[in-house]
């Protein structure tokens, strides 16, 4: 009868011998860590501030030697410790000795733990002893308080030790697992790295499929973060050197799962399979299918790049499946003779799975595409579109102002539904329309949040009654209010724009805190008064204001004196602001008198685009002609009409007229001007409603 | 004590039995003399002790030796031996064959007779 204790038994003699045989590994690892980490510190120990960046990088495991050691040492150690399983001679001798399988397994594992952790621990201790305050500075170097962080505190060193050990342990436990299921050292080595990077890879691959096939799938956002954190090795890259609690628990869980699975499989392993590729039958289709799947994906998406239609991609899938299935089958059976019934059967099964997968995606088996959340089951939701937005952005790190009121949530879901109802319109939208991606984020009361991303055109956005409701709602106004941020002091205001003389006052900057405060209150009033149509209007702004302010970051040492910005594109009907500006001597009007002439270009004539998301022409329409305008207006009445009508983006490239407003500005601020070949200045614009209004 | 012929057709067990018998018959091993133990003999000859064991048992069965538990194995006195009819039969056959061969080789009958008589006289002390 096996007692529970026997599952945990270790043979000390074996562990001892493993230490004796493989001591070179920890020594080498120690040297790598020491020479690339500690040694430079010792060299500059008198004045470490120069090394601050490097120390921070090292302790966050972002330097190549540490990363290399973390990647190589655990896998090599596993290959060495369990290599005896891979040869007929050694496996016989070791298993004829008085050890149970559990003992052999445990001893190897414990030996590995010791071998790979020791160099990290030792270096960590040395670093702890050496640690002293070393500050790296960050923040704008202007007349602001410089924020500093101590990169060489004992906390940082302990964090390095903890994260490093976690990384190498995860890699080691995966490598032990692959050692048990493979039959020779080469396969062991290759499969270890395969598995280490496999899950993030598969995660990425699946995401690409979803993006390709599922309407509304949102590939941006934190999928990359999740993808990289699956493997701690890559996780360290995206987390900047720290692991969150959940990540730590997940990694520990991985180690335990691998450990238990390895222990169980070690007991079941058929020792006579030493020198085979794989020692467990069930692994053969798994690995073969993964290889086939990856190959299929690769060729499918490669072909898709070549040709627009889905047909290319499916051809790529088919070709990739066949080629890589053959390769995979050869690898797992370690033979070229795979064209037999067994191989065929395996292929058919895989093909079936692949077809089901693709069909499932195509028909949307999970109802992903049609799903719209129940507004009552939402905690909050957010919407983001990238049309020339008049919404202000802040430089301060604050929470996204999500929508939470039931009315807004309901409106948003209704809007979502209307997008789905209009899917054809968007999917067949001609490329030459003004479109933007729209992101919807839902924080549901349930476990899984929902994210969607659609491409919609401007008109749909501007004419949406739900959006109107949301953007004119009290919630939206108060959350995006200029006063929704805690400001310590306003430090300055800057003005940017394309229009107008700058009056008599050449200074485009106000530094007087009090004045800025007044300006902000005007901005607020105007903002509050804006209708949805005002918010989404493509009409040019009177001027763009950027306010800089200071704030205090809660709970952070040295958190005062942080700077941030808020901006406002002043609408042409922003009475309060405009009045205040004029009172201060700023005049950003653009009047017909100032304009010499306006050139109007026929649609599709020029290849210039303006701003993000603006109408992009069909490639076949590129005519590199730009030069000759279709008409030139110098009649002041007409000019005035145009000035009252023009917009900053073209909505439909085929139908909008690009205009250039030539005027003589004040030369003082040269950045805001564009130059054409004749060295004169003009403002870009578009007439989206046709030219009838001119007559 | 004696050499084993590994090439011989006779198994080792037979050789041991025969050899010891020879030695006893030739009085090289006298009555009541202690024989080496199974262990000792097997080590000396590099022979499987089970084989030695078997040989000793056979010799004991044939009456050439006897074992006293705790003390060892000893040569039997001549008189203690029982007549082994089977063995007598075997040896008789061998003798017959040998004599026939001698005749075949051309040795005249008188000489064969003489030979037998000499032999018997030689071992006359056996009674």
């Amino acid at each position, binding site marked *: 009868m096996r007692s529970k204790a026997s599952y945990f038994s270790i*043979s*000390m*003699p*074996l562990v*001892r*011998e493993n230490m*004796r*045989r493989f001591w070179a590994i920890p020594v080498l690892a120690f040297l790598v860590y020491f020479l690339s980490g500690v040694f430079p510190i010792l060299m500059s120990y008198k004045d470490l501030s120069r090394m601050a960046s490097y120390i921070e990088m090292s302790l966050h495991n972002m330097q190549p030697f540490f990363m290399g050691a973390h990647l190589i040492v655990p896998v090599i150690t596993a290959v060495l410790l369990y290599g*005896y399983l891979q*040869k*007929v*001679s*050694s*496996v*016989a*001798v*070791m*298993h*004829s*000795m*008085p*050890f*149970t*399988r559990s003992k052999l397994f445990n001893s190897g594992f414990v030996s590995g733990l010791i071998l790979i952790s020791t160099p990290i621990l030792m270096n960590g201790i040395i670093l702890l002893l050496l640690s002293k305050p070393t500050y790296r500075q960050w923040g704008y170097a202007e007349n602001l308080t410089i924020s500093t962080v101590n990169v060489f505190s004992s906390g940082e060193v302990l964090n390095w030790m903890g994260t490093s050990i976690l990384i190498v342990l995860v890699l080691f436990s995966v490598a032990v697992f692959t050692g048990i299921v493979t039959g020779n050292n080469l396969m062991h080595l290759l499969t270890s790295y395969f598995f280490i990077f496999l899950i993030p890879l598969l995660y990425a691959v699946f995401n690409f499929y979803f993006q390709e096939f599922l309407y509304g799938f949102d590939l941006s956002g934190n999928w990359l973060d999740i993808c990289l954190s699956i493997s701690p090795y890559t996780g360290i890259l995206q987390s900047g050197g720290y692991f969150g609690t959940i990540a730590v628990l997940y990694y520990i869980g991985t180690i335990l799962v691998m450990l238990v699975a390895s222990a169980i499989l070690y007991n079941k392993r058929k*020792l*006579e399979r030493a020198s085979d590729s794989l020692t467990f039958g069930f692994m053969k289709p798994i690995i073969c299918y993964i290889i086939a799947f990856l190959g299929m994906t690769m060729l499918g998406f490669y072909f898709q790049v070549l040709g627009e239609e889905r047909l290319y991609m499916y051809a790529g899938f088919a070709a990739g499946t066949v080629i890589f299935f053959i390769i995979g089958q050869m690898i797992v059976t370690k033979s070229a003779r795979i064209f037999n019934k067994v191989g065929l059967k395996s292929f058919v099964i895989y093909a079936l799975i692949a077809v089901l997968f693709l069909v499932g995606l195509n028909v949307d088996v999970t109802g992903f595409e049609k799903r719209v959340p129940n507004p009552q089951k939402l905690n909050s939701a957010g919407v983001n579109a990238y049309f020339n937005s008049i919404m202000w952005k802040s430089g301060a790190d604050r929470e996204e102002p999500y929508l939470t009121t039931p009315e807004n949530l309901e409106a948003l879901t209704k809007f979502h539904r209307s997008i789905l109802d209009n899917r054809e319109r968007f999917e067949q939208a001609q490329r030459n329309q003004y479109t933007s991606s729209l992101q919807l984020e839902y924080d549901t009361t349930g476990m899984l949040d929902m994210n969607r991303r659609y491409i919609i055109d401007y008109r749909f956005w501007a004419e949406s009654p739900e959006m109107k409701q949301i953007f004119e709602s009290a919630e939206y106004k108060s959350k995006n209010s200029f006063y929704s941020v805690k400001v310590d002091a306003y430090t300055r205001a800057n003005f940017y724009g394309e229009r107008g003389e700058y009056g008599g006052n050449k200074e485009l900057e106000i530094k007087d805190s009090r004045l800025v405060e007044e300006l902000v209150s005007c901005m607020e009033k105007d903002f509050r008064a804006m209708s949805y149509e005002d918010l989404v209007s493509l009409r040019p702004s009177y001027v763009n204001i950027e306010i800089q302010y200071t704030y205090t970051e809660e709970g952070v040492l040295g958190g005062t004196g942080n700077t941030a910005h808020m901006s406002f594109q002043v609408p042409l009907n922003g009475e309060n602001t405009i009045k205040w500006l004029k009172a201060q001597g700023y005049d950003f009007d653009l009047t017909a008198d100032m304009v010499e002439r306006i050139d109007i270009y026929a649609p599709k004539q020029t290849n210039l685009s303006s701003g993000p998301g603006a109408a992009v022409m069909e490639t076949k329409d590129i005519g590199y002609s730009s030069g000759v305008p279709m008409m030139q207006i110098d009649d002041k009445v007409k000019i005035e009409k145009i000035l009252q009508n023009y917009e900053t983006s073209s909505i439909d490239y085929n139908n909008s007229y690009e205009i250039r407003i030539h005027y003589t500005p004040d030369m003082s601020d040269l950045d805001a001007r564009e130059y054409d070949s004749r060295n004169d200045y003009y403002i870009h614009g578009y007439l989206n409603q046709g030219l009838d209004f001119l007559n | 004590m004696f050499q084993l012929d*590994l090439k011989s*057709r*006779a*198994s*080792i*067990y037979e050789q041991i039995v025969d050899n010891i018998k020879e030695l006893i018959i030739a009085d090289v091993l006298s009555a009541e003399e202690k024989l080496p133990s*199974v*262990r000792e003999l*097997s*080590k000396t000859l*590099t*022979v*499987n*002790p*089970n*084989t030695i064991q*078997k040989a000793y048992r056979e010799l004991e069965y044939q009456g050439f030796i006897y074992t006293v538990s705790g003390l060892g194995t000893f040569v039997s006195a001549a008189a203690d031996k029982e007549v082994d009819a089977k063995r007598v039969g075997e040896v008789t*056959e061998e003798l017959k064959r040998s004599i026939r061969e001698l005749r075949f080789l051309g040795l005249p009958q008188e000489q064969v007779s003489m030979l037998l008589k000499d032999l018997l006289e030689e071992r006359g002390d056996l009674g």
Partner: protein
Amino acid sequence: MIKVQNVDKTFDGFQALHNLDLNVKKGSIYGLVGTNGAGKTTLIKHVTGILKQDEGSIFIEDAPVYENLEIKQRMGYIPDDLYFFASYNLKESAGFYKSIYPRWSSERYAQMVKQFELDEKRKLSRFSKGMQKQAAFILTMSSMPDYLILDEPIDGLDPIIRKLVWKYVVEDVAEREMTVLVSSHNLREMEGICDSIGILNKGKMMIERDLDELKSDIHKIQVAFRDPKEDPYAGLNVLHRESRGTVDLLIIRNRKELVEKIISESNPVVFDLLPLSLEEIFIYELGGGDSEIEGIIF
């Protein structure tokens, strides 16, 4: 004692062992013989607790051997394919063996090293094959096993060393009733040292007998009659018969006495009755038909 019962083992579709029985008595030296690929090494790997059988049982001293530490501590195994920790020399290996085999004897180890004249400090990987075998032998015997399992042990050893090896084996069998299971192709040598034989063919145990009994059951006869009788061999189990002129060569499976009795009744002029050597028995049992053995045995 070693008791293998009804063991089956299949490797990826190939059945290596069929319903196999094997019995080794305590203190016996059991020779396992068979053609190449008959399953000797596989069987041995089961007895040493390396492989696990599909069906059947493998008991040593009435306890299953698989994962049985107590038995394995008293078992020594020398495989055909040797393995030592890379870069270790004999001394270091001895240190390891000492730590895992509780009955390790340092005196014996020292004595054997001296007697075999091996350099303790030299890396085992540098030894010749034969010397490696000797080293393995020293390590195994110094752990004073109760059960010694040898797979082709004397393959590649010179006669002097071979003699030395058997000397130690016999000594332990004699002194400590060590049980030995040897597999070898060298049937001459097996014949000289084993008391029991198991003949394996295609994963099945064909014959398992005490060696002497095996040999006493079957005989090679060379006989000639002056006036041959009708059937001089009636009542005998004649397995094979060849004629060369007037001389008949036969293999008969009967007890020696019966053969002698029946043949003598026909008054042969030539009558040689010889036991077959183990090699001949092997060839006869496994050689297949009459044609194969004609000319080999006689």
